[in-house]
């Protein structure tokens, strides 16, 4: 593999849209009003100055087109961002979610006029139940963490309904996503951290010591963020259940299990799905995600309302009527309407329908195979602290003995080789973590090129570390000042009158 250029390319500077502004330039001209005018809001609410940029339409289009070329996405290349499952998003999803029947409906329409939408949602609920082994599913939550919050609310409601008010502690492994303790914390629960053992499993002794009648439950990601399937999962579930706790499954890593293991069968009581990871809904720009939640029988009654159900059974030639139902002890609404319908649910439905049961199993198997292939290629060059057969991802150390090169330097240098860097500095239990998740969508050539780049970078770390410290060199912008970005939160070129950045 050839070494990318190390000389700084001429920095490509695209001005901000405000800098491109020229007074008097117009994008659109408004026609004369043909409706009665109304008074403006009270004077106190009016600003004397509103420096919006003034540009022609073509200038705006060119500006954003140029910016879009600086972007990197799954449509550009390999994106091994661990824990994020950045798989390819099939383009057929874009066709289905734009079908007029889906696109031009409104959540407040009478149910008789949106039967197709409701059937899709009902079937998606059923399919997710089948995939996960749960008894019920809500499609409402707008993202993974929203799903977690929904799940933890149901756990709290369950204990409360039994008059079990002592339970305030949530058990969370040290390998967990940060959203897990945040979700429990939002409900005022105290978080008990459970360490991992030498093989990356939940430390059973520590778990046993923490289990008592004050435990709400445990939030466990399996496989965990080290990419390890817990070798004692049945014991973990039993310990939590024996003390009266509920098992929460973080579905972030469900891609490794599709068609092979069902969390419901393992004894989990509740789990959120990330449709934007496992089921190919695009993500990475901050949303919209989609985080349906599945529950076991004992939590069925607590599901958010409304759920999609059959409100009138089929009768002779008449198809059943689909509508909304409310579980008896429902925790209530988690979202104004019914979830991210077009963007999330229709795309995920399409993906599942396109693959079918065997195809879903293939996804999990190829995802695990690809991760193990990469792990095997990099073992020997990079330290793999929890080194055993991994699932859909693995974590390497981005550091070398006697070198001051760090994971961040390696990640930045990868951009010179035209790869999106892996997740770095997570999970926290690995020093200088590089968390690599190839997903099933990559072929062997891509995996080989990526492994070669990482091996070459390890060599560069020995021979010319400065090259890594100052990387990237071939991107429109070089190394960002992360300290400045974290400390100086106000970088805006224009601030409202009277705004005090010190406050």
């Amino acid at each position, binding site marked *: 593999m050839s070494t990318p250029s190390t000389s700084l390319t001429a920095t490509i500077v695209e001005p901000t849209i405000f800098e491109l502004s020229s007074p008097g330039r117009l994008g659109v001209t408004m026609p004369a009003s043909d409706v009665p005018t109304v008074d403006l809001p009270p004077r106190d609410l009016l600003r004397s100055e509103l420096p919006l940029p003034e540009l022609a339409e073509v200038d705006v289009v060119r500006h954003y087109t140029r910016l879009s070329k600086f972007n990197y996405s799954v449509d550009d290349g390999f994106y091994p961002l661990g824990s994020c499952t950045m798989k390819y998003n099939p383009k057929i999803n874009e066709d289905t979610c734009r079908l007029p029947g889906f696109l031009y409906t409104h959540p407040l329409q009478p149910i008789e006029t949106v039967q197709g939408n409701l059937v899709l949602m009902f079937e998606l609920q059923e399919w997710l139940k089948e995939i996960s082994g749960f008894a019920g599913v809500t499609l409402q939550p707008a993202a993974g963490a929203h799903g977690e919050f929904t799940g933890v609310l149901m756990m709290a409601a369950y204990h409360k309904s039994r008059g079990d008010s002592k339970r305030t502690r949530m058990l969370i492994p040290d390998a967990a996503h940060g959203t897990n303790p945040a979700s429990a914390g939002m409900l005022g629960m105290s978080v008990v951290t459970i360490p991992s053992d030498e093989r990356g499993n939940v430390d059973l002794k520590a778990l046993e010591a923490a289990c008592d009648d004050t435990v709400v439950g445990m939030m466990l990601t399996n496989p965990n963020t080290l990419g390890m399937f817990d070798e004692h999962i049945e014991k973990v579930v039993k310990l939590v259940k024996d003390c009266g706790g509920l098992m929460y499954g973080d579905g972030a890593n469900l891609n490794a299990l599709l068609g092979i293991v069902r969390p419901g069968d393992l004894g989990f009581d509740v789990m959120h799905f990330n449709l934007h990871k496992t089921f190919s809904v695009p993500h990475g720009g901050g949303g919209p995600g989609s985080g349906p939640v599945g529950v076991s029988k004992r939590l069925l009654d607590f599901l958010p309302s409304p759920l999609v159900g059959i409100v009138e059974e089929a009768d002779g030639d008449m198809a059943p009527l689909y509508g909304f139902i409310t579980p008896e002890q429902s925790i209530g609404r988690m979202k104004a309407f019914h979830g991210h319908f077009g963007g999330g649910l229709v795309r995920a439905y399409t993906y599942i329908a396109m693959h079918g049961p065997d195809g879903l199993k293939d996804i999990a198997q190829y995802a695990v195979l690809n991760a193990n292939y990469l792990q095997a290629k990099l073992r020997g060059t990079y330290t793999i*602290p929890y080194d055993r057969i991994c699932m859909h991802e693995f974590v390497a150390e981005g550091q070398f003995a006697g070198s001051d090169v760090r994971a961040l330097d390696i990640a930045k240098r990868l951009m010179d080789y035209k790869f999106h860097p892996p997740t770095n500095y997570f999970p926290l239990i690995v020093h200088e973590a590089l968390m690599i998740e190839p997903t099933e969508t990559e072929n062997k050539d891509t995996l080989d090129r990526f492994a070669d780049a990482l091996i070459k970078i390890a060599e560069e770390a020995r021979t010319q570390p400065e090259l890594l410290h100052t990387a990237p060199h071939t991107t429109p912008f070089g190394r960002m000042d992360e300290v400045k970005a974290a400390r100086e939160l106000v970088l805006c070129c224009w601030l409202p009158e009277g705004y005090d950045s010190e406050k």
Partner: protein
Amino acid sequence: MNVPSNLKFAKSDEWFDAASGAVGISDYAQNQLSDIVFVEILVEEGEEVAAGKIIASIESVKASSEIYAPASGKVSAVNKGVSDKPETLNSDPYGEGWMIKIEGGSAGDVMDAAEYEKFCEGRTH
């Protein structure tokens, strides 16, 4: 790795100076965290703290982390300077980067410098 011999260290990487009562984070910890960008001290002067209780929250470009009291006693001083200049924890962890002083207290579960140095070397992951 700088480990001053007059200090005691907690497993969670805080140091405690029994002579002055000062508390901070070790050189090892600041190096692992890399650039520290935010420090919030959660206790006030005059407050009683127990060893193992959270006294501060710090954030680096890599991670956020909680700081625990390595000793029990009364907080006699809070270094407000580190909140304004969090980078002091990186540049001078045992000097200007002290966070609070605990007066008349007793050390919790701490190690001496030699033990701590060995402990850090043994942390493969």
